[in-house]
């Protein structure tokens, strides 16, 4: 069974690894020799003889390993062709053994389980590769598989419960194992230990990775929904398609399980050790199927199984160790600040108390005063009271007109106190000082520009002199090129001209770019325009009321509406027989409203300012009766606009 060169190349790393493992160090001569052996297609014995000089006592073991590796490499290469055949079986195994696999693997890598489950579930949902006949995966089959799986799980549970006490005691290999391990190879205990450690190490890393992935998945609940997708992703993440591994097992049933001095080295560990990227589960499927692994499982704590089946990765588990607490230091001066604040507050309160005390001393308390002043009962419009409330305040005992000489001193509240009521700031605060910009004459402007430019130039020159900046290349123009680039220009005028032109173009470009950079972007320009259109309503809104004789023309209506929309005006249009009132709130520059309807007698009824807008978006309202129109205005607290417009129109008609 001679191998091609390419195959040999592929095998080389394997062999190297094996050599290293057996000898404890890498030895290129051994590798080449081994490669030779394999390449020539020697059988084991011959190869052992051949390699004897290199590795005397460990030869046999090495050869075994070597052939194993070669077989493995080959099988993986053959896997493609045999995949069709094996697929179905694999599926079955997968289904049948998911629990076992997970249990087994969990011994080393607990966290890996969820992913494995997902992986195993995957084929159920997605049909295998297209080469596989889809008919194989009928519903019935799946059902059967599931049943088988559950049965097996049950069995396994029973077994586990029997052997639940974990016995780390060394176990003799089961009777069936020797035939499985025909090579009967032994490994040094120390080596085995290192392998184990190695495997465990790797498994832990994998577990960490897995945990991270799970955490991410938990963050995205949408992804959890279709586990098969995740499974697929995981499959890919693992690098190599699982079937490969499994196929090898099928083609060559030699398991990689090593057994020495009672402690069973898990196949998983070995596998990982051997092939970096190859997930171990499919291999385990194979192994688990066999009865002799019961012993192995005995070693594993039963709780693992529980944690497998009921493990929810989304539930966060509190770490067994409490996190160490760190010191929290306060910033310097924090309490000082707090104290200062308290002190100022106390001071302020004291001051206020003093003020109020003084006020009480000099006058009557404000609240009682207000209660006294307020009118006793509400009067209806048009009612004439017995006495005006402001008069009744000073004569609480009543007043009779019969008394001729009203020289009475029993008036209430007449003192010589002068009130200083609290002053309120005006609603529109326009006392911000108006500052004129600095306006310079043309001469001054020029002077300033000259000075600043000279300054900048000086600075530049200074920099150049200090060597902080390379001196600028001479600025050449067409007009001065002869002077600047004298001899060069004479030698090659064309080239120099091209150079000059390039420089000019560069200058031009730089200038234009600077200009463009200074320009507002389209967005900014838009915002600026809108800002300009939108009035500053903090100082009151400008309002115009127009009265239009006829506003039935939809074109006019549209114009009003469009104008209002574009200029960010609000208001209302009330349509009544003869009196159509247009109220516009917004900027005071929109007299175009008027222009719209010049022919149609539009009268500006009123314009002025109001505190704030009383209407929303420009709306049209058809009002058949006057009352209705007034009501509509009243709703917005602006009935006086309507009153005025209506009465003006009435006056107009009577004239």
């Amino acid at each position, binding site marked *: 069974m001679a191998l091609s060169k390419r195959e040999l190349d592929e095998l080389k790393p394997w062999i190297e690894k094996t050599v290293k493992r057996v000898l404890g160090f890498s030895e290129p001569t051994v590798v080449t020799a081994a490669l030779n052996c394999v390449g020539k297609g020697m059988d084991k014995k011959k190869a052992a003889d051949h390699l004897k000089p290199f590795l005397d006592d460990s030869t046999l073991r090495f050869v075994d390993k070597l052939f194993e590796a070669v077989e493995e490499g080959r099988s993986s290469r053959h896997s493609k062709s045999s995949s069709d055949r094996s697929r179905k079986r694999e599926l079955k195994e997968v289904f049948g053994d998911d629990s076992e696999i997970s249990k087994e693997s969990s011994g080393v890598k607990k966290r890996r389980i969820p992913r494995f489950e997902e992986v195993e579930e995957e084929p159920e949902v997605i049909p295998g590769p297209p080469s596989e006949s889809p008919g194989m995966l009928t519903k019935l089959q799946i059902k059967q598989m599931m049943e088988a799986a559950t049965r097996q799980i049950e069995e396994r549970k029973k077994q586990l419960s029997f052997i639940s006490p974990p016995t780390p005691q060394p176990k003799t290999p089961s009777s069936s194992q020797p035939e499985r391990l025909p090579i009967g190879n032994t490994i040094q205990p120390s080596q085995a230990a290192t392998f184990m450690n190695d495997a465990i190490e790797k498994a832990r890393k994998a577990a960490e990775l897995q945990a991270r992935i799970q955490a991410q998945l938990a963050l995205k609940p949408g992804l959890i929904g279709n586990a098969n997708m995740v499974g697929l992703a995981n499959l890919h993440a693992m690098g190599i398609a699982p079937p490969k591994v499994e196929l090898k097992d099928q083609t060559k049933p030699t398991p990689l399980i090593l057994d020495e001095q009672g402690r069973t080295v898990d196949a998983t560990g070995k596998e990982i050790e051997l092939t970096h990227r190859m997930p171990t589960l499919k291999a385990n499927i194979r192994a688990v199927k066999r009865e002799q692994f019961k012993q192995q499982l005995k070693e594993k704590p039963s709780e693992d199984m529980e944690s497998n089946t009921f493990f929810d990765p989304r539930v966060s588990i509190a770490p067994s160790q409490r996190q160490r607490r760190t010191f929290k230091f306060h910033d310097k001066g924090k309490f000082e600040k707090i104290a200062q604040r308290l002190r100022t507050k106390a001071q302020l309160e004291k001051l206020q108390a003093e003020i109020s005390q003084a006020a009480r001393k000099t006058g009557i308390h404000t609240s009682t005063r207000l209660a006294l002043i307020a009118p006793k009962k509400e009067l209806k419009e048009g009612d004439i009271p017995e006495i005006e409330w402001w008069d009744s305040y000073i004569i609480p005992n009543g*007043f009779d007109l019969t008394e001729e000489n009203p020289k009475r001193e029993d008036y209430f509240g007449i003192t010589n106190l002068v009130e200083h009521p609290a002053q309120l700031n005006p609603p529109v605060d326009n006392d911000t000082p108006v500052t004129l910009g600095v306006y310079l004459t043309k001469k001054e402007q020029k002077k300033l520009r000259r000075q600043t430019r000279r300054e900048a130039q000086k600075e530049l020159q200074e920099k150049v002199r200090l060597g902080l900046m390379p001196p600028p290349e001479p600025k050449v123009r067409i007009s001065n090129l002869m002077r600047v680039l004298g001899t060069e220009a004479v030698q090659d005028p064309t080239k120099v001209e091209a150079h000059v032109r390039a420089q000019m173009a560069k200058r031009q470009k730089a200038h234009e770019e600077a200009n463009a950079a200074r320009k507002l972007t389209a967005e900014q320009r838009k915002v600026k325009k809108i800002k300009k259109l939108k009035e500053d309503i903090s100082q009151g809104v400008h309002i115009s009321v127009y009265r239009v004789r006829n506003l039935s023309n939809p074109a006019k209506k549209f114009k009003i509406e469009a104008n209002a929309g574009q200029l960010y005006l609000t208001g209302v249009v009330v349509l009544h027989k003869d009196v159509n009132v247009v109220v516009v709130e917004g900027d005071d520059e929109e007299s175009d409203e008027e222009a719209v309807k010049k022919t149609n007698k539009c009268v500006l009824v009123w314009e002025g300012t109001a505190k704030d807008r009383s209407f929303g978006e420009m709306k049209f309202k058809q009002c058949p009766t006057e009352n209705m129109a007034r009501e509509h205005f009243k709703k917005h607290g602006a009935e006086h606009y309507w009153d005025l417009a209506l009465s003006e129109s009435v006056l107009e008609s009577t004239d």
Partner: protein
Amino acid sequence: KRARQINVSTDDSEVKACLRALGEPITLFGEGPAERRERLRNILSVVGTDALKKTKKDDEKSKKSKEEYQQTWYHEGPNSLKVARLWIANYSLPRAMKRLEEARLHKEIPETTRTSQMQELHKSLRSLNNFCSQIGDDRPISYCHFSPNSKMLATACWSGLCKLWSVPDCNLLHTLRGHNTNVGAIVFHPKSTVSLDQKDVNLASCAADGSVKLWSLDSDEPVADIEGHTVRVARVMWHPSGRFLGTTCYDRSWRLWDLEAQEEILHQEGHSMGVYDIAFHQDGSLAGTGGLDAFGRVWDLRTGRCIMFLEGHLKEIYGINFSPNGYHIATGSGDNTCKVWDLRQRRCVYTIPAHQNLVTGVKFEPIHGNFLLTGAYDNTAKIWTHPGWSPLKTLAGHEGKVMGLDISSDGQLIATCSYDRTFKLWMAE
């Protein structure tokens, strides 16, 4: 280099102030303004221009907070104030009684008669026309006032002259010389030409330099000056009794002067900006002031309290007037509106979108208050029905802003004066 970019005032005193604010010597030996300025600039370039700004801002803040914490407080006025208040109480209470009595009587008149009267009035008002126009002076005329007997009209002019005109033929009777600056207002004593002697104080006027002068009818010179104002006095108004004179001042206060005692009895604060107009209640019990802070206040003259706060205008109040019915107040404002307030209900009853420019004056018809007259900077005066507030007539004819207006006490004549240096009389045909 940084120093050169800092703008420093060229005013030497300001430079010194800045230096002082920064805690630097304001001048060094042999240092001139230029060097000082340069020094300030150098200092500023080191400490940064923010240093000065901050101090300025602190100043402002402290000022503002001081105002914010302002509360109602009292101080004791002179003893004469109490005397005057008692006097006003004695004066106003019977008048109030009388007024209410009359109102009740008026109410007993059947509805139909009243409405017919009203219609008659409206009809006559509709026919109001420009009856006479006279160029009053060579500067804008700021104020006009009818004498109580409606035979004379006093006009105040920005030239500083006040003139008395005969009505209705508009002949110049007197020229009152005394003011040097814009005269804000001139008003007749409520009893002058009716029962008051010509030699007595018949008129009062105020000017932009803060001078308030009292005039008699037989002299062109002021009888007396009222000292005490430092800034512009916008308006003066007589108390209905004729004993007191109210003045409004741009120093945020209005004053009440007792002419019998010849002293200021009340210096009333309360507005946060200058006070522009003042009006007295018919009874003499209340005074209303309108300020440039867009608020109006109604004061009880007997107790000295602000009994009503007229809040609603957006801009300065330029005119305030009491209705003869005793409980309506009209205010005209810079926001082109005129508001009518009800004293009894203590609220704004109606907002008249009166004019297209700021409203300079409002006046109720003095007998029954059946109509309201408003004048504005849109060159027109308008007449509004009083309850109802619908427009009756627009008095258009002036070529300039209407600065002042008045209605004669018999209700027959209306006078308006304008920026175009004329005053016009309007009468129903």
